[in-house]
C-alpha cells in the first residue's frame, strides 16, 4: 500500500462491524461500496482517508479468505446435517 494513514477518532465512532469477523460477501460488498463512495468524490479529506484505510483492511480480509477457503461439505442424514465423510 502506498500511504500510511492514521485513523481519526471521529470515524471510529461510527459503528462498523469488526473486519476480522466479516464473511466474504459482506467484506467484498463493503469494499465495493467504499470504492464507489470515494470515487464519487464528495467527502472531506479526513473522512476519505479513514474510509481508505478501512477499504484496505477489507481488501486484505477478502484476500485472506480467498487464500484460506476450504470447501465445506455437509451431508443430510435423516433430517440432520452432518459433516461429510468420503466413502472409501
Amino acid at each position, binding site marked *: *500500500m*502506498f*500511504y500510511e494513514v492514521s485513523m481519526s477518532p471521529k470515524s471510529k465512532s461510527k459503528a462498523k462491524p469488526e473486519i476480522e469477523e466479516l464473511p*466474504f*460477501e459482506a467484506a*467484498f460488498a463493503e*469494499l*465495493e461500496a*467504499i*470504492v464507489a463512495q*470515494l*470515487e464519487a*468524490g464528495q467527502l472531506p*479529506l479526513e473522512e*476519505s*482517508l479513514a474510509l*481508505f484505510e478501512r*477499504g*484496505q483492511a477489507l*481488501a486484505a480480509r*477478502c*484476500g485472506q*479468505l*480467498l487464500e484460506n*477457503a*476450504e*470447501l*465445506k*461439505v*455437509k*451431508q*443430510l442424514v435423516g*433430517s440432520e*446435517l452432518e459433516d*461429510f465423510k*468420503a*466413502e472409501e
Partner: protein
Amino acid sequence: MTLPLFDPKAFGPETWSVSDLNRYVRQHLESDFRLQAARVRGEISGFRAYPSGHWYFSLKDSGAQINCVMWRQRAAYQRYTPRDGDAVEIEGAVTLYETRGQYQLDVARILPQGEGALYAEFARLKSQLEAEGLFAAERKRSLPLRPRRIGLVTSPAAAALRDMLNVLRRRWPLAEVLLSPTPVQGPEAPPQIVTALQALIPLQPDVIILARGGGSLEDLWAFNDERVARALAAMPMPTVSGVGHETDFTIVDFVADVRAPTPSAAAELVSSFSVQDLRAEVDAASDRLNVVLQDALATRQAALNAQQAELRRLSPVLQLTLARQHLSALTRRAASEMHHQLALARERHQRLTQALNGISPLAVLQRGYAIVRTPDGNIVRQTREAPVGGRLQVRVSDGEFGVKRET
C-alpha cells in the same frame, strides 16, 4: 386383397410380369402404415457390418425370420451395436427389394429388447410435460453468480460426487455444499430422489445439482420418471441437471433450469465465476481504492499549492522585500556615486596642488632667488626697505638665515 385405389386393370395387363408384380407388392407394403412404422422383436442372427457401412442381418424367432438391412447413415447413429444372439427390438419399415424379390425390413433403429417400450414411454411423458409447459424457456431461471450454498442430489458412493466436489474445491471453495444422498437407479430410486430434493428446500441452497454418472437407458430410467420430473420442476431455487451420458437427454434435462452434459460440467456451471475471478475482482477494487485516494490527495495538494501561490503574491512581506531590495539598490548606487565624486575631487585637488606648486613663489627659490624679510616680517623689495646696519632674515630654498646690511 386389392385396395380400390390399386385396380390392377387400370395399372397393367392381367398377366403380370415379374417386375410388375414385385413393384406392385412393394407399393402395397409401403402403403400400409402399420408396416412402415413397425416395431419388431426378435433375435439377431448372421450379423454382418460391411466396409461400406451398411449392416445386414436376420431377425428371427422360433418360428420365422426376416432379412434386415440398416443403411450406413442410420447405422452410424446407433449407439448400440448388436451381436448374434442379442434379443432386440427393431424399429423399421417393411419393404420388398424388387430386383431380388426379397422381402426385408428396412431398419431405422435397433434397441436392446425392453428399451423400445422405455423409449415409447419417454416420448409420451416428454410430450405430455412439454404440453404442460414444464420445459418452457420462460420458466428457466438463471444460476446465481456466487452461490453460498450448493445442494447436491446424487449417490454418495459414486464417482460423480467425487468429480463434482473436486471441481468445486478448485473453483469455488467459498461455498458450503449440502449433499442430499439418494440411490440413482433401480425401481426404488424415483421416490427417494424426490425425497432427497425436497429435503433440501428448508436448508435454502442457492442452487441444486441433480446428477449421476452415465449408463444405459434402464440405468438412467429414474431420471425419466414423472415424479422426479415434477419434483424438480417445483424446486424453489434454480436447478442444474448433470446426468452423464453422451447422446440422449433424460426428462430431467428438459425440466432443469440448466442442463449440463456431465456431473463435472454441472459443477463447473455452478462455479462459472471462480475463486480466481473473485481474486481478480478484489485486486481490481483494491487498485481503484489506491487510484481514487491518490487522485483525491493530488487534487487537494494542487488546490493548496494554488492557494499558497496566491497568498505569496498578495503578501506584504513580498512588498517589504521588494522595497528593501529597492532601497538596497539605491544605497549602493548612492555609495558608488559618492565614491566617484570623491575620486574626482581628489583628482582635482591633486591637479590643483601640482599647479599651485608650479606657480608657487617657493619654487622660485629653487632657481636661486631669495626672499629677504625685515625682522617684523615685511618682505624687502627695495633697498630703502632695509636699513643699513639693520638685521634681515634671508629665506633660501632649503631654509633661513639672518644677515646684517652693511652697505
